[in-house]
């Protein structure tokens, strides 16, 4: 009702100071929550994209059961039908086959455990960034060469140089221990300790030789998509199109469950912080509204006497609170949007001391905000809801107010 809106608006400005302070609290709550969530979610996005494009891929196709237990035996062939499905999906930019095994790499008296990856350089280049991470030397080119590129830390640990020959020992498909001599032609530095400390990249054909994976058997296909948002859709599409019963299509969350869950964990703690903040501000709102209501009991009493329906008076209180909340939220949204925008285009990079820790846990030492509008929408709804909840008790007091009690109120 127009009358209510008019009254509500004027009532807000009766006590300017109080309203301003309440407004400030709401602005703070809105803006702080948007900024915090922005940085949190933005940084997750950065890390996910980085991890996914570095090597794992947005999606992977593997044998069912391989993810839980990456046994050498769980290999499959890249059939034409599968190839066709992948090539005809317009959201798939490229894909590449991979072979994987654990092995021992030795140079003179030193041996280290290693993760052997058989890759197809031409396809790999289009699908992941691993080849861009070449630090020194070069990547093998021919299919059958016995050249390898290893992680930089691994090179150091082995105390070997590029150009030298090493021995790689691995358990083959038929159970025998295969070993071959390889020449190191280059190193990669990815920033991910798992790769830098243990990765050995060789041509996929060579790896299949070493591991007796005849018939062009591979362990996984890594797929690059045009956008992270299409992940679900493409995954579903592939699942329904792939006829083979023993192949699974996995997204990065399933391939890197640790990353997913550590993001989830951090997410929870962020949400918790949000809720705590909002609750505290809610108390402030409760107090303010309650005060402004009890101050007016006399006036309310008279108003009820002359016949104003009780409900309308209760609504009045609600509308007053919502007005202030909305103003505060709008300003908070604008500020939050500005900050998120700023930190989206100007991400924060960490000093070396903290960078170290982040890398240990597989995170990039970068904080970037997100301009996803859902952040603003969700937080708006949150602050609005809590404002309404906070004024429920004062509304109740007005609901129960009897005209005479109001008039006589001191």
């Amino acid at each position, binding site marked *: 009702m127009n*009358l209510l809106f008019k009254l509500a608006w*004027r009532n807000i400005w*009766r006590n300017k100071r109080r309203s301003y302070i309440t407004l400030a609290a709401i602005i703070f709550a809105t803006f702080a929550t948007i900024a915090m969530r922005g940085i949190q979610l933005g940084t997750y996005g950065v890390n996910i994209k980085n991890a996914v494009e570095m090597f794992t891929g947005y999606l992977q196709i593997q044998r069912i059961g391989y993810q839980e237990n990456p046994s050498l035996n769980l290999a499959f062939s890249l059939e034409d039908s599968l190839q066709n499905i992948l090539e005809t999906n317009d959201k798939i930019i490229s894909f590449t086959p991979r072979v994987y095994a654990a092995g021992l790499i030795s140079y003179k008296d030193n041996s280290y455990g290693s993760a052997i990856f058989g890759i197809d350089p031409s396809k790999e280049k289009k699908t992941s960034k691993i080849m861009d991470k070449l630090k020194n030397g070069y990547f093998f080119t021919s299919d059958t060469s016995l050249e390898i590129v290893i992680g930089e830390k691994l090179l150091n640990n082995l105390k070997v140089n590029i150009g030298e020959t090493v021995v790689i020992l691995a358990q083959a498909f038929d159970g025998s221990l295969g070993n071959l001599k390889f020449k190191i032609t280059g190193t990669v530095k990815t920033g991910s300790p798992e790769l830098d400390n243990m990765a050995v990249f060789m041509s996929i054909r060579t790896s299949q030789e070493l591991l007796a994976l005849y018939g062009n058997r591979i362990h996984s296909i890594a797929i690059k998509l045009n956008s992270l948002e299409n992940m679900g859709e493409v995954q579903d599409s592939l699942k329904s199109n792939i006829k083979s019963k023993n192949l699974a299509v996995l997204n990065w969350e399933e391939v890197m469950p640790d990353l997913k869950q550590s993001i989830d964990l951090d997410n929870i703690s962020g949400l918790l912080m949000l809720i705590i903040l909002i609750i505290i501000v809610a108390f402030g709102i409760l107090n303010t509204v309650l005060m402004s209501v009890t101050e007016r009991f006399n*006036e309310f009493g*008279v108003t009820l*006497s*002359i016949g104003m*329906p*009780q409900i309308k008076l209760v609504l009045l209180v609600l509308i007053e609170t919502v007005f202030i909340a909305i103003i505060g939220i709008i300003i908070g949204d604008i500020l939050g949007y500005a900050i998120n925008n700023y930190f989206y285009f100007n991400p924060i990079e960490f000093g070396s001391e903290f960078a170290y820790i982040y890398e240990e846990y597989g995170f990039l030492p970068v904080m970037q905000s997100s301009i996803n509008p859902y952040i603003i929408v969700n937080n708006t709804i949150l602050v609005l809801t809590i404002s309404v909840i906070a004024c429920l008790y004062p509304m109740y007091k007005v609901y129960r107010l009897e*005209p005479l009690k109001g008039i006589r109120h001191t």
Partner: protein
Amino acid sequence: MEIIKTENLKKTYKDNGVPVNALRGINLIINKGEHVVIAGPSGSGKTTLLNLLGALDKPTEGRIFFKGEDFSLKTKKELSDFRLRNLGFVFQAYNLIPVLSATENIEFSLMLLGIPEKERRAKSLKLLEELEIADLAYKRPGEMSGGQQQRVAVARAIVNNPKLVLADEPTANLDSKTGALLLDLMDKMNVEKNITFIFSSHDQLVIERAKRLLLLKDGLINDQNN
């Protein structure tokens, strides 16, 4: 024509746990157009009686009829609506909503009744003229003196042509000159528009002007005119 009729009206309330028999059996008939003053010493129950007559309170015993309608048969909501349509109130203080202008205060009940703006405006402006407070039209209560506020309150009370106006100590916060002016106003409305007025007061000024004086003592009425 009978406006108000009470039958054996009793009201008891608790004052710090001690029961007080404010009204012990009031039998009363008030007719349209009357100018009644309920008088009595402080604490004699006049405000209590007025509140009952104004459907703001419920009796402990007995019944109140307004033009034949029994208050006790109505729900709170019905009583509230009833007050809106049939009654007008002038209280001692806090009559006006501080954030509304005089005109808006006067039109308040008309707005609640859903009367369109043109009509509302016409009525309120006319009243403002009649009560000689036209210059206050767009002022807020904070910009008016006590006397002016009360006059606007009277305007508000009668704008929807109520059958009955109840005034509880309307002159209590005013000096005698302003009080007299206010009472002149209300008397005029009583005569010109035939609106029934019931006052409760211990102010000499009010009592002197009573056309019918009801003395309330020990919870019982002594009708001075009978």
